[in-house]
Structure formats: structure tokens, C-alpha cells
């Protein structure tokens, strides 16, 4: 066993080998690739495209809500039915086409095998299939706009969704299809983590990103089939009027909500666990300090994944579930808060006595701590039964889940994108503009969604086209915030794209991290590692330089 790339790996070195981007040429080589890095990059492109579409829809919604009668300069922007379709599309695209695949399928695909010291994922062809299934589902979802639009909300509650016109069945089948993409990715990652860890890498030597994505994969495989079945049942009910969920046909509308949230609550953890996983990489790296409470973070990911299956009923406290169920679900909901709290304290303890650099990824990680902190803490209002009854289905809930989903997952995703950008693209982004963008996003986000907490606690229901004049000031504040937020996001995009015009100047290990993906060239060669790497130290061991052995 020889020790290769030691501290030299922090410089780019002179000689560069052909990287995965240039290994093969032509569009066909991308479309038929089974390289996890290329599939990750293709996922990244479409995931960002979905984010762009979903985000533009959000900006349009906020603009329209600027005045209670939806008039700008004297003319109505759109009517109530169009509004309903746009918010449905915004939700469906953001949840099913952006956030769920964002970190696992895009960044996870790229980074996970590198972190484990593997050549690829366990099933490379299944990985490519998962990408095409995702594309198919995305095309189906978007074409439902052309073929009659969907106005059910992303939650598809029956009996409205069983009776309304429009392309609900197509959208439901799109969700079904996207679910399979998610299941394939999850299966692949589970097998990869179990079988393809480098020699010397035990379960507790894995980077915490791997733990987070692994816990996510468990949920993807176990929960996603339920939404698939639910969507098929909905389509059957719409097509043949078999009474499953529609009370007039003898079905039970509340049953739909149980099925829906049995997936969609664990899906919240499909979204947030990978975000937490990224933060667990960024904070030790930019603090140059070993992770505090590694095992606690790893176990808390798995604990969240498991307990997360038992709290779906907290979406239904005033929606017709029994009083006893409500009590049980409320209690378990409070228990699932504990592992998340533990993580936050562990991250802070990692920063304590660290050697902290405020590069853009670290700024995003600190934003995450604050925004996810607010998102998690405001969850206490909603977990407690009597306050939830007042706040349920108001803007308070909208603000809460945007703080968790966007303030948490999306901020972590953007942070992770900056963090691994040198590895993915081989280029360094411009640090100054990335930092300015991060600050803009942080401010814009808080103005947009902070005001919505007060709208909600004052009693403004969600999914409202018209609203009372007393809510206008807060709505206007929220809309102005959305412009700042949008500006920050576009600046981020411009900053990352601008770096692509420059030469491949990224060093192998620009941040001085200790996980395996930084031991290889940026961007990596097609087969990642020259031989079989061997892990010689833990993923956050800052007592030694990054060292990798060879089997």
C-alpha cells in the first residue's frame, strides 16, 4: 500500500489528465452515458431549469398579489382560475421536479461515489434509466399545462381533484412517473453505500453527506410507492367513477389525505435530510475542524428517517381525523424535532474553536442555520394542537414550510453547488459576487416569507386569490421581498455561468477538505480514481493532511 496524493493535492499540479467532460465527445455520448458524474450534471441542468420555471411562476404570483384586486396599472393580471392553476404548477414543479431530485439526484449522483472511493454507483444503467424516467415525468407534468391545466393544488385533495376538469389524471401520472425515478435513485444509492465503500472505510468513516443521502434513500424506497398507488387510485376514480375517495360514490376523502401524507410527510425528510447532509460537509471544511458528534449526526439522520414515517397525521389535525389520532401524531411530531435540534447544536459546536473562513458555501451554511432554525422553531406552533388549529392552512404554514424547504433545503443546495462547483466544472466561481448574491438571497428570503408568518397568524388563509384590505401592506412587503430574492438567485446563476467561460483553474482541493472526492483532479477523470483508493483517515480528521492509500 502506497500513500499517494498527500498535501500536494491542495494545488492543481502541472499535468492534467482528460476529465470526464472531455472523455467522450458529442451529444450522443452524453445521452447514452452511464457515468454517474455526467448523469449528475444532466440532472443538475434539468433540476435548475425546473427551479427557474417554478421560481418565475412564484414571482408572477407574488406580483399579482401586490394588490387585493390583482390590478397592476389598471388591468387585471389574471383571474382566479388562472391563479389557482399557477400556484398548483408552482407547487408541483418545486416539490416533484426540483427539490426532491435536487440534492440526491444532481449533487448526490456526482459526489456520492467519489466520497466512497468508488468508480460509479452500484447500478450505472439503472441510474441512466432513472434520469430518463425523470425527464418523462417532467414532460408529462409540463404538458398537463397545455392539455387543460390543473387547479387542484399540489396536494390533489379529493373530492375536488376527483371532480374538477383539466388534466389532473396526466399530472397524477406524472407524479407517479417521477416517483419511480426517485425510487430508482434511492435503490441505487443504498446498494452503492452498502457495497462500494473503499477499503478502510467503515460505516462510521463515511462522510456525513453519505449518511444523509443514505437515510434519504431509505425513505425514497419505502415511502414513494405509496404516492404512486395513491395517484393511480385517483386516476381510476376519475376515469371509471369507482368510489375510493369521493364521498358521493361511497369513498372517503379523508382516506386520500392519509395516503397522500403517508408519502408526502416522509417526503419532507427526503427534501431536508440531504440539505442537512450538505451542511455537515461545509461546516467542518470551512471551520477546518473535526465534526463534533459525528455519530449523533449520523444516527439522527436515520432517526429522522424512521420517526418521520409516523407523523403524517399532523397535516390533518382539523381535517377530520379522530381526536386520539391527533394527540398521538402531535406527540410523535414533537419527538421528531429533537434529532433536528441535536444536529444544529452539533454544527455550532463544530464551529466552536474552529478556524472559520467565510467563503460563499460557509455563508450559505450559516444562512441555513438561521433560516432552518426559524423553520424548525416555528414548527412548534404547528405541532402543538391548539395553536395549529388556528394556524392550519394559513400563510403561517406557507411561511413555515418555505423556511424549511427553501431556507433549509434550497439554501443548502445552492451552498453545496458552490462547494462542489470546482469539482464539477473545474472552475472557481467569483467569490465576491457569490457572497453578494448570498446576502441578497438571505435578505430577500426573510422579507418575502417573514411577513407571511404575520399574515398567517392574523388569519390570512392560503391559496386565496382575493384578500381583505387589512392584509395588503404585508402582502406588498412579501412581493417586494420576492424581487430581492429573485435578484439574488439570478446573480448566483450569472456568477456560476460566468465562471464557465474561464479556464479550468480549480485546484484539486480548493477548500482543504478531508473527504475522498477532493483527493482527485478537478474535474475528475472518467473513472474517478486511478486504482482502488483506500481510506487512511476519517472524513473530518484535520490532524493530518488529506491522504489516500492505494490498494
Amino acid at each position, binding site marked *: 500500500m502506497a500513500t499517494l496524493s498527500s498535501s500536494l493535492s491542495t494545488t492543481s499540479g502541472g499535468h492534467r489528465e482528460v476529465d470526464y467532460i472531455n472523455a467522450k465527445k458529442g451529444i450522443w455520448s452524453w445521452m447514452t452515458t452511464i457515468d454517474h458524474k455526467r448523469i449528475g450534471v444532466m440532472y443538475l441542468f434539468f433540476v435548475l431549469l425546473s427551479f427557474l420555471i417554478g421560481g418565475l411562476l412564484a414571482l408572477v404570483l407574488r406580483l399579482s398579489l401586490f394588490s387585493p384586486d390583482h390590478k397592476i396599472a389598471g388591468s387585471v393580471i389574471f383571474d382566479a382560475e388562472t391563479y*389557482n392553476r399557477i400556484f398548483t404548477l408552482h407547487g408541483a414543479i418545486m416539490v416533484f421536479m426540483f427539490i426532491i431530485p435536487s440534492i440526491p439526484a444532481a449533487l448526490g449522483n456526482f459526489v456520492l461515489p467519489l466520497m466512497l472511493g468508488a468508480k460509479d454507483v452500484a447500478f450505472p444503467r439503472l441510474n441512466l434509466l432513472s434520469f430518463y424516467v425523470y425527464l418523462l415525468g417532467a414532460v408529462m407534468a409540463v404538458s398537463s399545462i397545455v392539455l387543460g391545466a390543473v387547479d387542484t393544488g399540489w396536494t390533489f385533495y379529493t373530492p375536488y381533484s376527483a371532480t374538477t376538469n383539466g388534466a389532473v389524471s396526466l399530472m397524477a401520472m406524472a407524479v407517479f412517473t417521477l416517483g419511480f425515478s426517485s425510487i430508482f435513485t434511492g435503490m441505487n444509492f443504498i446498494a452503492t453505500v452498502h457495497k462500494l465503500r473503499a477499503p478502510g472505510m467503515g460505516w462510521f468513516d463515511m462522510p456525513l453527506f453519505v449518511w444523509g443521502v443514505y437515510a434519504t434513500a431509505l425513505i425514497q424506497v419505502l415511502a414513494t410507492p405509496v404516492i404512486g398507488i395513491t395517484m393511480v387510485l385517483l386516476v381510476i376514480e376519475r376515469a371509471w367513477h369507482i368510489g375510493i375517495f369521493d364521498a358521493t360514490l361511497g369513498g372517503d376523502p379523508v382516506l386520500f389525505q392519509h395516503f397522500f401524507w403517508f408519502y408526502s410527510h416522509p417526503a419532507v425528510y427526503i427534501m431536508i435530510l440531504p440539505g442537512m447532509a450538505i451542511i455537515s460537509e461545509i461546516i467542518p471544511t470551512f471551520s477546518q475542524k473535526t465534526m463534533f458528534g459525528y455519530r449523533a449526526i449520523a444516527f439522527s439522520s436515520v432517526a429522522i428517517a424512521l420517526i418521520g414515517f409516523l407523523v403524517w397525521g399532523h397535516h390533518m389535525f382539523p381535517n377530520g381525523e379522530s381526536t386520539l389520532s*391527533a394527540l398521538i401524531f402531535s406527540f410523535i411530531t414533537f419527538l421528531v424535532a*429533537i434529532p433536528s435540534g*441535536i444536529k444544529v447544536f452539533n454544527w455550532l459546536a463544530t464551529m466552536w474553536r474552529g478556524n472559520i473562513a467565510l467563503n460563499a458555501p460557509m455563508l450559505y451554511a450559516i444562512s441555513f442555520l438561521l433560516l432552518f*432554525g426559524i423553520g424548525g422553531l*416555528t414548527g412548534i*406552533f404547528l405541532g402543538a394542537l391548539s395553536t395549529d388549529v388556528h394556524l392550519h392552512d394559513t400563510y403561517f404554514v406557507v411561511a413555515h414550510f418555505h423556511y424549511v424547504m427553501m431556507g433549509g433545503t434550497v439554501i443548502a443546495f445552492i451552498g453545496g453547488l458552490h462547494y462542489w462547483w470546482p469539482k464539477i466544472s473545474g472552475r472557481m466561481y467569483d467569490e465576491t459576487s457569490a457572497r453578494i448574491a448570498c446576502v441578497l438571497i438571505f435578505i430577500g428570503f426573510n422579507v418575502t416569507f417573514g411577513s407571511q408568518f404575520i399574515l398567517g397568524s392574523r388569519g390570512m388563509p392560503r391559496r386565496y386569490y*382575493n384578500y381583505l384590505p387589512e392584509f395588503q401592506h404585508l402582502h406588498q412587503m412579501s412581493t417586494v421581498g420576492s424581487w430581492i430574492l429573485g435578484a439574488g438567485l439570478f446573480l448566483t446563476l450569472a456568477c456560476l455561468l460566468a465562471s464557465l467561460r474561464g479556464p479550468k483553474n480549480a485546484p484539486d482541493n480548493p477548500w482543504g477538505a478531508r473527504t475522498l472526492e477532493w483527493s482527485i483532479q478537478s474535474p475528475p477523470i472518467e473513472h474517478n480514481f486511478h486504482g482502488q483508493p483506500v481510506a487512511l483517515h476519517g472524513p473530518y480528521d*484535520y490532524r493530518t493532511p488529506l491522504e489516500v492509500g492505494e490498494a
Partner: protein
Amino acid sequence: MEWLRSLLLPVQGSQHAQRVDTLFMAILGLNVFFFLLIAFLAFYCVVRFKRKPGVVTPYITHNLALELIWSVIPTFIVIGIFFWGAAGFLDYRIPPDNAMEISVTGRKWSWAFEYPDGSKFVNQIHIPVGKPVKFTITSDDVLHDFYVPGMRVKHDAIPQRYDAVWFTPMIAGNFNVACTQYCGKDHSKMAGMITIEDQASYEKWLLEGPPEWDELLKTEAGAVQLGKQTYENKGCNSCHSVDGSKVQNGGPTWKGMWGRSEKFEDGGGVVVDEAYVRESVNEPAKHVVQGYQNIMPSFGGGLIRDKEMKGLLAYMRSLK
């Protein structure tokens, strides 16, 4: 703290609202404390441990005592909050026996209310201050949600299910009712209003009917509309048709009835006019039209208000 409460929460219409608000403010305090703790620690670390060249960070993997502290203390706090929230929740789910019962039916896109005496109103109702009211909620079509922000009460309207919530209004005033379960195009226009007033005003309102009816009675068309509503609300339609058909074991059709000569079962007869209609509503058994049985219940004693009667008369006149 009252200024902050009134900034963040709507008016407190009931004791239940006060209870919910107390918990809300307690959780807010907890939120602020933990947020400031996180923010302070993060900013302190960033400033105090700013990157300097040559610094070697300590190798600290864990600290059991510290980890127990930040696991166990929050656990106790949230379990306490669970019980606090559950107590308020049980309170709102279990109505007292003496509560007045009003049934609420959501439909696209309005609220129908029905009082124990059978009086029905759309979107606007009055209730007396200081007395518990139980709302039994259902839906005619899709899901809706009966939300009274000022009372901190909310429950889904589910077709073919009947769930109850209740509150005791403490103060007089107008309280908005909103639908909070998305139900389609005019979801946001499904707004109702509960007026809470003293017992005397409430009784006057219930006795005379809402002032909107006065507006309707100003025109013939409005009066006919009120009459048609009354015809349906009071169940006249179960025995009397308006298209000339004969209802099995029912009463005479109203079509063409106005001004018609009718013979009575016990001899004699009448040309149908206001006096006869009023008499038949109050004392239906007195003069039963020939060929029909004496089966109509009395609607006397205020079951049909005078304004509703005027509407019914206009409606009958219109059915030529």
C-alpha cells in the same frame, strides 16, 4: 406583551382564543430564545474564530455531557408544550351539553347555516354573546373548512361527515368566517360573517329576520326571491309543487293557486287570497281543500316570520 399579541393575532373573541394566544405567546418566547441562541453562537464563532493562517484546530469528537444536555432539555420542553396544546385542543373538540347547535354546510361557494328552529341563513348569522354555540359542520360537495379566526376555531367541512366545534363568544362584534380548505375558483370569496350581539338584539334579529330581507322586499322580484328561498328552506317544496304536478300524499300545487276557487273538505270554499294563505300556514287544519288530507303541520308561532310570509305571498302570486 399585549401590544405584540394584538400585532400578531386577531381580536380575541372567546376564552378559547385567549387560551390559544397564551400558548402562542409562550412558544413565541421559546422561539425567540432559541433563535437568538443559535444566531449568537454562530456570529460569535465567526468573529472569534475567524480564519488565521497556521491555526491548528483541536480534535474534539464529542462531549457526552453536553450532548445529553441539548438532547434532554429540549425533549422536556417540547413534551410540556405537547400537553399544553393538547389541553386546549380537547377543549375545542368537546362541546358542552347546553350549547346551542347551529349546523354549517359548506358548498361552492357559500356557507349555509341552520338554527335549531329550522331557520336557514346564507353566509350571515347572529349569535348571542356569552352562550356556548356548537357548530356541526358538513359539506354538500368538495372539502371546505369553517374557520373563524377571531375564535381560533377551524374544522374541515367533509361531505357526509358531521364534525363539531364550539366556542362561547365573549365580546360583541362582527367575526369573519373564511374557508381554509382549497375548493376551486371562488375559494377566497367563501366569506361569511358571524355577528355577536346581546341577547335582546339577537332575539329581535331571530324574530324578525335579517335586515337584508327588508332590502329584498323593496322590489317585487326581490320578494319573489325571498319567497322562493323560504319555500325551499321551510320545506314547503316537499308537499307543494310549483309546476302544476301533484305530489303524492301532499298538498295542492302552488301553480295557478293564487285567485283560484277552492272547495273545502267540510263544505264551503274560498278564493285563495292573502287571508286564506296566512290562515293555512298558521292553522292548516281549519280549512282543508277538497281531495287532500289533513296532514300539513302548523307553521304558526313565528316559524315563518312576517317578512318570509310576504316573500311567500309574492312567490305564489308569481306562479301563474
